[in-house]
């Protein structure tokens, strides 16, 4: 609950604490109520859930669910600060691998300014390169070339956004979808096969590729949802295993002649027909393709689905508390299957963006690490459609900029991955971030007793 620095927060309101205190005498369940309201609205970031707050407590099936939920829906400021903190630590890491820093550290006491300057130089040089590689490169030849890095960012962000939306959507329905990777792969297999094996007219071919990919992802995701709904198999385990099945199935296929180029035995598919690939929307000097427009459309769609549609309302209700949702007449099984299918379909769009957008072939690396990065993106975007979109852009920028960072400054790409991982780490630990920036609310002595007891009932997550 301390995710909200807002003073309106239930916990900082003495009256609420008093109520909690009093209520806890006879009903431990009621104690959680006020806290849960805060979780439910994520400090006002989300709309309050339709499900009565009393139904939501630390005793939800799977106590870790609330922790996850909190991580996913933490407040925006924490996301920003986490990125900032990660960049600072990343800068120090860059400096520590820098030769100039190492040299100057040797005579730190003789002339400390040298080392400090070297540290500053190393970090800023790398981040400037990161910026130039991802947003705007003033050394480019003409405006088109100067903005090329930004187009590259959008290109790389495309599959991250759609897969991230899939993860975010499933999470809002209370499902932790680790299976984006497998869903991208299955979508990639189907889309690529339609793309290189069938030869159809322009327009129709691409449409079929897109449909094949979305259907493939939806089936793979929906199957996981079906297993969850019908047998109670945990979606985390099911989707992780489905990732492996998809990957090894892909590797098997790539070893069959049907998926290889005629006369070659390398595990790489033929190139997709020109009629099957996304058009490059801003001309051939950029890699940016139609998939990005579709990613924007998907974001709008998910926003509408979640906030304006009955189905989305049901998803959120199930996510808040499946039992209460069932009591209220919502078909939980149907929602679970449907949300996983839609999530899979969104991840499937990433698969299409890969084979029909940037790669144009199918290899066993078709999904890269997008399926797992998508989880991070959804985390950073706090599971909201536009938050995920923005987080996707940020990660796209990191990836695009990493190339320049490597060339200009020799910073290993691993540093960028470290920064990304640090962001996740900090988002998962909001109190740490707020402690670093001195944002933790002052604790008052009488409040502490209530809080610590409450912490115990909510699994110590506070």
């Amino acid at each position, binding site marked *: 609950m301390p995710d909200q620095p807002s003073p309106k927060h239930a916990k900082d309101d003495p009256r609420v604490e008093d109520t909690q205190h009093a209520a806890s005498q006879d009903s431990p369940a009621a104690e959680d109520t006020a806290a849960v309201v805060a979780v439910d609205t994520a400090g006002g970031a989300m709309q309050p859930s339709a499900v009565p707050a009393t139904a939501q407590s630390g005793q939800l099936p799977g106590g870790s669910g609330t922790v996850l939920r909190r991580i996913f829906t933490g407040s925006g400021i924490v996301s920003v600060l986490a990125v900032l903190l990660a960049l600072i630590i990343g800068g120090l890491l860059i400096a520590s691998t820098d030769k100039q820093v190492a040299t100057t550290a040797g*005579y730190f006491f003789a002339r400390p300014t040298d080392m400090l300057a070297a540290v500053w130089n190393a970090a800023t040089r790398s981040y400037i390169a990161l910026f130039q590689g991802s947003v705007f490169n003033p050394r480019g030849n003409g405006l088109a070339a100067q903005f090329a890095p930004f187009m590259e960012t959008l290109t790389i962000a495309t599959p991250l956004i759609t897969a991230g939306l899939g993860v975010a959507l499933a999470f809002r329905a209370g499902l932790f979808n680790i299976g984006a990777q497998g869903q991208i792969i299955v979508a990639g297999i189907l889309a690529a096969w339609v793309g290189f094996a069938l030869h159809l007219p322009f327009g129709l071919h691409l449409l079929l590729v897109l449909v094949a990919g979305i259907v493939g992802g939806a089936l793979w995701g929906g199957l996981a949802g079906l297993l969850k709904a019908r047998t109670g198999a945990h979606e985390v385990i099911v989707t992780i295993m489905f990732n492996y099945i998809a990957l090894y199935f892909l590797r098997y296929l790539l070893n069959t002649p049907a998926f290889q180029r005629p006369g070659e035995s390398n595990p*790489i598919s033929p190139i997709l027909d020109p009629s099957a690939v996304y058009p490059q929307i801003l001309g051939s000097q950029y890699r940016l393709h139609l998939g990005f427009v579709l990613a924007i459309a998907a974001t709008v769609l998910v926003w509408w689905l979640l906030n304006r549609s009955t189905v989305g309302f049901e998803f959120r209700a199930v996510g808040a508390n499946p039992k209460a949702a069932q009591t209220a007449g919502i078909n939980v099984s149907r929602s679970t299957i449907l949300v996983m299918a839609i999530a899979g379909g969104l991840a499937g769009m990433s698969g299409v963006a890969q084979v029909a957008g940037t790669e144009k072939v199918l290899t066993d690396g078709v999904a890269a690490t997008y399926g797992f990065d998508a989880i991070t993106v959804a985390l950073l975007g706090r599971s909201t459609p536009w938050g995920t979109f923005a987080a996707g852009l940020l990660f796209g920028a990191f990836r695009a900029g990493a190339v320049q960072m490597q060339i200009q400054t020799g910073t290993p790409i691993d540093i960028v991955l470290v920064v990304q991982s640090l962001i996740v780490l900090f988002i998962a630990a909001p109190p740490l971030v707020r402690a670093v920036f001195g944002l933790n609310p002052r604790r008052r002595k009488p409040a502490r007793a209530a809080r610590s007891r409450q912490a115990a009932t909510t699994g110590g997550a506070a």
Partner: protein
Amino acid sequence: MKKSLRAVFKRGSMAGVATLGASALVLTACGAAPEAGSTSSAGASDYTGCIVSDSGGFDDQSFNQSSYEGLKKTEKDLGIKVNQIESKTNNDFEPNLRAMVTAGCNLTITVGFLLGDATKAQATANPDKHFAIIDFGYDKPISNVKPIIYDTAQAAFLAGYLAAGTTKTGTVATFGGIKIPTVTIFMDGYADGVKYYNQQKGKNVKLLGWNKDAQDGSFTGDFEKQDVGKQLTKNFLDQGADIVMPVAGPVGKGAGAALNEAKAAGKDVKLIWVDSDGYLTAPDYKDIMLSSVMKQMGEAVETVVTEDKEGKFNNTPYVGTLANDGVQLAPFHDLDSQVPAEVKSDLEKIKKDIVDGKLKVESAASPKA
């Protein structure tokens, strides 16, 4: 009382360690500051050689690393500038290659068949730039791309013969990382070497892990999971093999670990390394390193860069063979005494026959040049 004493003692030792550590830090930071304005600038040439790895990275103990080290060597020897980018995933290939072209690379070396399409695209779009690609050849040559490929089966043939002639149990083994031509070519040559030994000597040495006719055998599934390589090797040992050739990059270390354990348990086992001379590059397994099937990628990269810098670039594929020392069987080093003299002289003769073309080593994966 005891407890508190211990606590004090503990705290004391902690403080001591801390003091020691701090003083070490302070001491290392006590050097004299250099005079200002003493920046050195070597007379570097304008020529830039670049390299883009595949997702294995430059520390893959395999072709990325060898090629990278070759290029790094030219940085010193020829005084050229070097740019390198590691690809983390297949998606990085095209952006990385584009970035290299933008960065003004004269020659860009790409590593592996997965970069084939991306290299072709950039080469076609930038006809004034030169490219070289390791371990991949195009059906239709591209005017500004030089393929660097290896007829590895020739050297692997020698390794197969060596293994068959040295084994004490009459069973040898091999396994691969992923079933791709650049891996199976080793296994084909190895299998043929064993077969040739059996034909010549009327023996029946068994080979585990690869069936050349069926083109199928044992694979670990990737070039990462060393424990899978270790398990496979243990299985081979249980089936009576005493010499194993892993063709799986770093996964070979798993095989080395399993063999080291077997040796510690008193078994007489041996390892055949691939790509580089394992005696030098994987010294942990020195004691069991019988030999290595080497692909001299560093040397090939150096040659191509040197030629290009001198304006002698051409797109004729470089094919490493026994004849041009592009592929070799490494020396036996410490295990020299364990190789029968007869086998050694046979190997000399076989090598000569292959170089002269009297003995043909064929593999479905051989370069079609």
